[in-house]
């Protein structure tokens, strides 16, 4: 039986005692002090902090124990299966971690002379070419820090493209399917586009008739993930590309679900113009508890001219930066990208190669289908739409919920007690009481059985003992958390010393309305 550590670990501030210190930085020598004189006379008085900065005071062992205990209160893919749908929580190879632990990477500065960073530039150039081959795109920028960051860059490139054709004022609409990741509409809206949602048909894929109705002279592009968030391959992708292109729009590939297609199908060959990849998903770099990730963006030949600067070029002898890209959108972040993540992904690709990457895709699909079949054989959950799934599937607990009041979230919480992470819940929004399960290729048969058994067991328990499920989890470091209290204006607490309660709006449940740009 799984039991998570529960330390009741106090806050750092509660362990603080005056006079303790956990790290002493170097001090300037007497000689330096003599030359400089009194520095407090140098600092403008009005900018000087009076008194010490308000931070806790702890020794090094206390700090290390604090965070080590906290780490034990955190489930991770190194502990067990983590089937969070659309997040591709695969195992992160340890050799990639060691590969980045060198002063030759950690202690190089992005403004160094090109001649002193030839190694990392070669690696980045190599990685770009590898990712271009894997995706079928012409060129890749490694700059974006995450998938959504890549999406935003993609939207900027779509703008630049339409502007170059004198059509930006007219091309104001970005189409997204109703099954899209939340980041797609959010990225499009951030880039000033009006979001137009196209519904899925009864097979769980884009309804072509509906798409025909919404495309037109205002269409800037369509953002889509394939396989979609239901895990279903959009088999009409060629027709979709044709419809969007005929209308003058561009087709954007959200690479969050690329894992099952590695070496099998390439977005470039499906007709996509722009894509992003999530290296922290498909290419096994660690998710960092929510980052850093990396979201390289690939484009077709005709869109290369809009990529961020600098491009990294190779003249046959040396690598250099190319800032001479007149139509470039500029920069999407400072410097060149999340380099440590890029190096890990590079190691991963070398580890796998062409055969290995294909094996990744196929095994992820095989594993997912194994779990799905086993769960469906239990006859408990509903699987809306068709049976054919790739790397993930979305179950519905609607029937159970109507019958017993036990909701998808309750099932998810109860799964935690069984030593597996829960699936993604309530997403995509087109499935009621959704449980979105993704099973990466890094899981063993025992892991698959544990996950399938857990899904089945919590459902059965919900029917016989609904209270046990509704009150779950019981084996985690804390029991069910009061989320309503956590976000309620009167009890919101964003700081360890002071409650932060905020003004209550007339109706706290009323959604925040935003200024229309």
């Amino acid at each position, binding site marked *: 039986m799984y039991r998570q550590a529960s330390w009741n670990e106090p806050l750092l501030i509660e362990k603080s005692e005056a006079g303790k*210190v956990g*790290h002493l930085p170097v001090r300037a020598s007497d000689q330096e002090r003599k030359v400089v004189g009194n520095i407090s006379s140098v600092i403008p008085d009005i900018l000087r902090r009076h008194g010490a900065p308000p931070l806790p005071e702890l020794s090094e062992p206390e700090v290390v124990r604090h965070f080590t205990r906290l780490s*034990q209160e955190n489930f991770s893919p190194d502990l067990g299966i983590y089937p969070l749908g659309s997040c591709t929580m695969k195992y992160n*190879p340890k050799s990639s971690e*060691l590969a980045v632990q060198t002063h030759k990477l950690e202690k190089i500065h992005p403004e160094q002379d090109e001649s002193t960073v*030839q190694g990392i530039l070669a690696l980045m150039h190599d990685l770009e070419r590898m990712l271009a081959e894997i995706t079928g795109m012409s060129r890749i920028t490694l700059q974006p820090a995450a998938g959504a960051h890549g999406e935003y860059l993609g939207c900027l490139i779509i703008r630049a493209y339409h502007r170059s054709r004198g059509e930006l004022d007219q091309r104001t609409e970005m189409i997204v399917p109703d099954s899209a990741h939340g980041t797609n509409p959010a990225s499009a809206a951030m880039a000033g586009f009006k979001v137009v949602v196209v519904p899925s048909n009864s097979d769980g894929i884009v309804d072509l008739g509906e798409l025909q109705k919404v495309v037109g002279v205002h269409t800037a592009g369509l953002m889509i993930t394939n396989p979609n968030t239901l895990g279903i391959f959009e088999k009409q992708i060629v027709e979709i590309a044709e419809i969007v292109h005929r209308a003058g729009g561009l087709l954007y590939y959200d690479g969050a679900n690329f894992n099952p297609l590695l070496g099998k199908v390439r977005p470039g060959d499906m007709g996509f113009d722009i894509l992003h990849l999530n290296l922290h998903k498909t290419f096994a770099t660690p998710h960092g508890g929510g980052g850093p990730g990396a979201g390289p963006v690939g484009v077709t030949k005709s869109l290369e001219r809009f990529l961020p600067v600098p491009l990294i070029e190779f003249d046959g002898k040396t690598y250099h930066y190319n800032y001479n890209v007149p139509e470039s959108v500029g920069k999407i972040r*400072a410097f060149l*990208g999340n380099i*440590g993540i890029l190096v890990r992904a590079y190691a991963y690709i070398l580890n796998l190669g062409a055969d290995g990457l294909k094996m990744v895709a196929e095994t992820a699909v095989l594993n997912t289908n194994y779990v799905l079949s086993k769960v469906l054989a239990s006859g408990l959950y509903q699987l809306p739409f068709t049976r054919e799934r790739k790397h993930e599937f979305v179950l519905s607990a609607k029937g159970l919920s109507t019958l017993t009041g036990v909701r998808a979230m309750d099932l998810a919480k109860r799964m935690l007690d069984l030593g597996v992470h829960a699936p993604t819940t309530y997403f995509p929004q087109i499935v009621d009481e959704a449980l979105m399960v993704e099973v990466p290729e890094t899981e063993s048969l025992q892991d698959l059985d544990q996950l399938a058994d857990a899904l089945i067991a919590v459902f059965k328990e919900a029917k016989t003992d609904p209270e046990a499920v509704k009150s779950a989890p019981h084996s985690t470091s804390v029991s069910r958390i009061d989320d309503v209290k956590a976000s309620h204006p009167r009890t919101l607490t964003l700081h360890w010393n002071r409650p932060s309660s905020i003004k209550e709006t007339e109706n706290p449940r009323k959604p925040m309305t935003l200024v229309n740009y």
Partner: protein
Amino acid sequence: MSLKQGLSVIEGLEVRPLMASDGHPFIPNASGEVRQKILGSLGIDSVEQLYSDIPKGVRLNRPLKLAGFYPEQEVRSRIEQLLQQNKSAAEYTTLLGAGIYNHYIPAAVKTIMARTEFQTSYTPYQAEISQGLLQALFEFESMIRDLTAVDAVNSSLYDGSTALGEAARMAVRVTGKYKILVPRDLHPDKLSVLRNYTEPVGIKIETYGYDDQTGHLNIDDLKLKLSVETAAVLCEVPSFFGILDPNATDVPSLCHEKGALSIIGFDPISLGGLKAPGDYGADIVVAEGQSISSEMNFGGPGLGIIGCRGDDLLRQMPGRLIGMTTTTDGKDRAFSMVLQTREQHIRREKATSNICTNEALLGIGAAAYLALLGPRGLSQLFETIMIRTNYAIRRLEDLPSTLIPRFTGAHYQEFVMTFQDSRKSVEKVNRDFLSAGIHCGKSLVKDFPELGQSALVCVTEMNSAEALDKFAVTAEKILGA
């Protein structure tokens, strides 16, 4: 396929690729009996049957042209060989800063960040099983909030430049105005990112100048440009040129008079000795937090820090916010993500931002860093950097045909040096420094032509007096010649 034939550039590396039938260390069900068992249970002969719905026309009918499927040992040695060509700050003296800084990262910070429970997990959607991450991020937010004296800090954005972009958008949403004023002396990357975060929604960016003598902000120019149409004014302390400008503390009140908000860009370590921006009226604070969490790493990852005052801005905050609450039975303290209705996974196109994955691990690193240094360590580090920066200035100020520092204002961590000898270009001088084993300052020639042949030099606690003396001697040789 050998590495020579593949996409690699290193010659002469003898490698034997693995065979598909070997299986793969990362893929338990890649081959053998277990694979047959899974296929059998699905009633299929080949995994191809699970791909039968994909149109033939788009299928890839050849292997990817990739080097790879190499044993771990070969991969490690290849990457080592590639990176070997870099010249690091451990080999050369580095005087480069401008947004990414060479600081000492305590061993305990690295150890904590390497805990794979933190490193390999993801966003704590299931709070009960992710309390460790949530508490650590809550503590990060609390400490940054105390250092900056604002009301709320989120759990990170991508980097300092995107934090500025998001800050500008927050200010526009709250004020309903569409103009942002930024200093002329802003890192060119930040300016480009800011434009990309604002231009698509019609926000105008305008710059205000700096004083040619002191390097302080040109308060007359700012007053001239600040109007009732201004959503916010950015002011950085220290400035891009490393100046500690006393006028910065007047900027928030100037903004408020016109109904605008003030965004203060800060350097986290400098708050060991400098006043908290919230204490002189900052509405939004932004920073690059790389220096308190990780090594330079060729410029990434960074740690975007953003904080704000007041409910209106809080409701417009992008990204994850962690709050303290209790379990439903009220017995235990607990942590969870709060105000999620601001975020893309709930609000989609109406969200405050599209950000999902951020830089959480660096937030944990920063929490560990600040907890380790504490008040004493952070003040001491500020003092060391202040002394060493000014020590370098003293050692260089008498060099002939140079203006060091270019500006007369007080300096922290960075200063501009200007070469007045027409035979000395930054490009040539930097090349000479490089031959002497010194990564000298960032050239300002392209982005700040008004400063002539100038470079931005950075000094941190990593630059000892001996190294700075050597720098001064080398500079004398190069510039005196």
